[in-house]
């Protein structure tokens, strides 16, 4: 088996296990936090870092869409 795929499978299993041990509320927060983190990474990404007010606007929009 390809080692990379194997590592990915293990990482997925670890994540699934972690999510399984969380409360329903934490699972919702966890998913929202991950999405915001990815958005922040893109907004700060080398090459096209966005100014503060743009980041704040985009984050507020994203939080608005989160349902919790």
């Amino acid at each position: 088996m390809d080692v990379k795929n194997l590592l990915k499978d293990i990482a997925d299993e670890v994540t699934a296990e972690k999510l399984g041990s969380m409360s329903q509320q934490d699972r919702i927060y966890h998913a929202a936090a991950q999405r915001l983190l990815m958005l922040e990474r893109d907004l700060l990404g080398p090459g096209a870092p966005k100014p503060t007010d743009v980041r704040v606007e985009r984050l507020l929009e994203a939080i608005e869409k989160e349902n919790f």
Partner: protein
Amino acid sequence: MFLQRVLLRNFRGFYGDQTIDFAPLGANSVTVIHGENGAGKTNLLNAIFWCLTGEFTPRLSNIEMLLNKAARDEDKEAECFVEVTFKHEDKQYLARRTVTGRNLSSLEVIPLDDGVGKPFTSPQQFLEKIIPKGLSRWFFFDAEAIGELELSGSTQFRQELRKVLGFELVDRLLEDLDRCLSKKQSSLAKAVNSKELDAIQEAREKIEHVLPAQRDKAKALEQQLAIADARVSKLEGELRNLPKSKPLQDSRSRLEARRKNCVTSKKELQDRIARYVGDSAPAVLIASMAAPFQDQLHVKENSGRLPAPFSEQLVEDILRDATCVCGRPVDHGSCEEAKIKGLMRSASTTAFNQRVRAIQYLLKDIEATRETYGTSLADLQRRVETNDTDIAEIDDQLKDIKRQLELIDEDSIQTLERERSAAATEARQLSQQLAVINDQVTKNEARLRDLKLQYENTAKKLGHGDAVKKQIDKIKRLSDYIAGTLKKQELRALNLLQIELNRILTNYLTKHYSARINPRTYEVELLDAQGRDVGRSTGEGQVLKFAFITAVVALAGRKTQEKIEFLAEPTVAPLVLDAPFSALDPEYQGSVAENLANQSTQLVLLISSAAWGDAVAAALEHHVGKRYVIVSRQQGPRGNKPVKTMRINDQVLTLNEYDAERDESVILEF
């Protein structure tokens, strides 16, 4: 990322083109480059570092002189560039940085997979994505400066380690969420039209406006201070290398180490005094009331009550048996029984006695504190004064050493001492400025926390703006969750780092020492078997620093990363170390070398013959995939000068040559 090749053209001491093909990944992924002091090892490290980051290591001097002097003399249009070919995520790239003027350069990054591709439009950003800016100095390390690596938990150290651990992105997200919160709270203040909320919000915005600039200023000052400190250290090293100034410089180093200890100890004592006064001063103030209170207690204790102590069991027995201890009857319903029960209602019971005793002990403690307060405080203050005297004496001795150095009749020493003095003054001034700005940051952060709390309490009282309040609550809950999770992950990451450090120390140190990382400051302490701090300036402390760098590099890679959530993209980079073992005690060189080779994905060592001892050779020989030597060539006859050689696998390498066409360093594969 792993390095495949570096090409230098007319870079500093290297004339013309010089190339190194690095050992490929696998069992023999170590590339060793031998060279004597001054041959160009640090220049080579900086060539790679500069090409990829545009920066230099702090100890490199004359950074504006990049074009080789001989090449410039021969041709005014001579080119100076460094090309690094590397692979990242199975794709091959070429980075080329060219000198275009004084302190100016241009960078190109070209993908090589399908022939020569089109250069990237934002090459520096591309490279920073592979090795983020803050991480690069951990991977390209001037190990001669390992002694200067501060594991003492400075703000800069903590920030860089957080970057390595991948927490910086989460920090930035939390900062931005705070801004989101502030923006929503501002709209709430407008929506409910509250003057009180408006005022708090305005005060908050003022601080939020100045705080980032203050933090940036602190960061910039820390960087300037690190450069100034490195410069002082470099100049002191040069003074130590000159026979006439060596003894004086050695004494100065010892005195400065003593001074540092005295200053630390003084600060600890001052903190103790502050804590002691805070804890004990109230006792001294109320002590005058304690004595009459004590007397009052005795009166209350006995007034109208059965005298204490008495046995409750004895009274119960009398009533049950209806017979007094003297033999007289105490019949039920009799006036004797009524009298005993009346006394019992106000008797000194065990619980009452215990309460009285507790108060009496407390009053005694207050009295004892009052009695010893003066002497204890005076004792602590005396110790501070002793420290002050020691510091003043050391300062006098340091001044004396400076005077003696200035009097040495040798131009080079006088110049070095002058430069050192200027650099030390600059470092001192920067340090003072940093202390002031750090104090401002701390005060503003505390004020901001207060204002946030005030805002929340005031907003709770107001019934309007429910929709905005809901949004605010949503941001707060999310921020709290992320901050809480981050805290847990941070502790886990530091724990992993600590485990890794201790694994290395257990395997390689002869003494039973262990490392502890303070989760608040990230300070790394070295402890003996009894848990006492043994300091980081010992030989074992140097091993700790090497262990720390390798553990950090390993942690930044994939090895332990799966166990930590919320990390940035994994960073796997080569570890390039200049003069890795010169700062280490010989007994530890072999084990550190072995550990470096085992922990890093790709290791490049620039090393002198003196540091290539038997232990290092034995530890690394089976890991070495490529070996080069930097030969230093000098114009002019040899005269009485030595020819340096080193023996590797029964072959003799010549490290310097004379009667050369020009002064230059050349890289030869061995």
